[in-house]
């Protein structure tokens, strides 16, 4: 060996600590993030178990009970068609979260692929792709949404698709930025000198390291989509009835009669949107810290 034996570090007792554990610990330090996570779990639980928890069929109308205040019969009151608000909220969570998750997953996927290719290969390809991204971004989002929603037949899938198509640009920029800096990181150069192919470098070496910002933008994006759905509902272009979503519940309450006379009715969906967006933002903040290697514990 010709190697000084003293160099073998016998005393080294490597404390094996997986990255996940380190990140979890960093995450747990952020109190708001923990609160956010708990809230999210509760909300997701509500959505998943809505059929079990919900006291009534969310589309069951008792027209005579229209706009009943919260009380014994309707815990959180009834809506303008006499449907149980609590049940609709629970089922609405399914739709709002589904739209949020799926469309963000879609936009993250598109954005990541485009951003990764642009960032890693750079040059002309990058320039062309980024011009395209610029074009889409310069198109004010709500305009784009309105146009898209009028083009496609409204349905849950359309809405999801529309949000995915509109949301990917941010991710693409972000991922491109990450890739641009990571592609000249020493560990990537190292991988290249070892003869590892580009595709593998992109997906197996760089992507896992860019995951932090991506996940953070995803969590923030979900909140954004839930709000976007509410805004579209305002323009009458949201989720198709009778499916409840928080956005269309809120929308159906924008009427002075209801806002002043049945204030509780908009309050609950509004509150749910608030809580959920808050939770996602807190979680995003926590994840940002957890993923950022520069932020020490």
């Amino acid at each position: 060996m010709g190697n000084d034996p003293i160099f073998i570090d016998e005393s080294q007792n490597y404390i094996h600590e997986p990255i996940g554990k380190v990140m979890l610990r960093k995450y747990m330090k952020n109190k708001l993030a923990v609160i956010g996570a708990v809230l999210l779990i509760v909300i997701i639980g509500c959505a998943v178990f809505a059929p079990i928890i919900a006291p009534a069929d969310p589309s069951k109308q008792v027209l005579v009970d229209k706009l009943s205040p919260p009380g014994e019969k309707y815990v959180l009151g009834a809506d303008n068609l006499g449907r149980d608000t609590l049940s609709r909220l629970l089922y609405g969570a399914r739709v709002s979260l589904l739209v949020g998750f799926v469309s963000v997953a879609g936009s993250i996927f598109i954005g990541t692929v485009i951003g990764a290719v642009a960032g890693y290969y750079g040059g002309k390809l990058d320039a062309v792709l980024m011009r395209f991204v610029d074009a889409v971004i310069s198109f004010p989002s709500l305009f784009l949404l309105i146009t898209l929603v009028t083009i496609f037949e409204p349905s849950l899938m359309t809405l999801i698709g529309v949000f995915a198509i509109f949301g990917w640009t941010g991710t693409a920029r972000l991922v491109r930025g990450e890739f641009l800096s990571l592609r000249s990181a020493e560990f990537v150069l190292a991988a290249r000198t070892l003869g590892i192919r580009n595709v593998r470098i992109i997906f197996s070496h760089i992507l896992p390291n860019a995951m932090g910002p991506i996940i953070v933008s995803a969590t923030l994006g979900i909140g954004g989509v839930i709000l976007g759905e509410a805004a579209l509902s305002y323009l009458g272009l949201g989720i198709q009835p009778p499916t409840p979503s928080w956005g269309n519940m809120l929308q159906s309450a924008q009427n002075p009669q209801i806002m002043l006379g049945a204030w509780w009715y908009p309050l609950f969906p509004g509150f749910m949107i608030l809580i959920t967006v808050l939770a996602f933002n807190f979680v995003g903040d926590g994840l940002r810290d957890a993923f950022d290697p520069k932020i020490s514990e």
Partner: protein
Amino acid sequence: MGSTSFLEPIQQKKISDSREQETLLEVRNLKMHFPVKAGIIQRTVGHVKAVDDISFTVKKGETLGIVGESGCGKSTMGRTLIRLYEPTDGSVLFGGTDITKLPEKELRPLIRRKIQMIFQDPYASLNPRKSLGNLLNEPMKVHGLYGNQKERDEKIKELLEVVGLHSSAINHYPHEFSGGQRQRIGIARSLVLNPELIIADEAVSALDVSIQAQIINLLEDLQEEFNLTYIFISHDLSVVRHIADRVGVMYLGKMAELADKDDLYKEPLHPYTQALLSAVPAIRSKGAKNRERIVLKGDIPSAVNQPSGCVFHTRCPMKMKVCETVPPQFQEARPGHFVACHLYD
């Protein structure tokens, strides 16, 4: 670039002949120019001549040290040698094959295996999301070495031992190691494909002195054991003196001087080398007289707007008229001692 001197032609020929056989790497007129983008719209306003017409050879089993100040193009040269950058011009012959023009496919079994690199930053050069085992296993797998996983595991264990790490470390992630340990991992990884040439770019600069010494010793041991050839890039003249057989001094993308280490340190020819050596703060022993220090005036010019003539003339204490206009040739001023300076024309 050979010598243009007419003195002792026979002897010189002999030397180069005898060296020819052992030559592992030959660099001819290598150039690497980067476009410089400026302003918010990033248009090209010029070129950084990061490596500008450099030629040298590396013999099998030797250590060639490359020194120079920050930004003089050391890293760029190292990276260009293994085609991390596509060279602007020139050729690099490895074992007789010009590797500058090979397609990536042919490059892989040849260069990507036989030439390896150790990077400066032990923190940045290891993928933080891959375990040690994974880091070492992947290259072997990609190159299809050692038929099965078991053999590869064997090899990994062996390597860890060679670089002085405990084999229990295999499942750990880079963040769990200290700087010195990480650099050992980096070294282990560079060895995993049984390379012939290793380019070490500032391999010890980021380490604390006491750890630095460990790594230097390790590198020396490995060279002996595996008959490795090193190109050792560093800005630390003391370290280079310690480890190298021959030393090249770079200034602004050009090779200013290249010689056997003893020649170079004892009798530097180029005024820049002289100044550089004298500027190194040295531990002086009790009563020892201060060495005479040549303090250079001014800053290193930018690599974009290189001075005309000899690039060093703006700071050179021995500047002559000719230096301002005519770039000096890189030539053999003494046997085996190359220098680019008009003083030795």
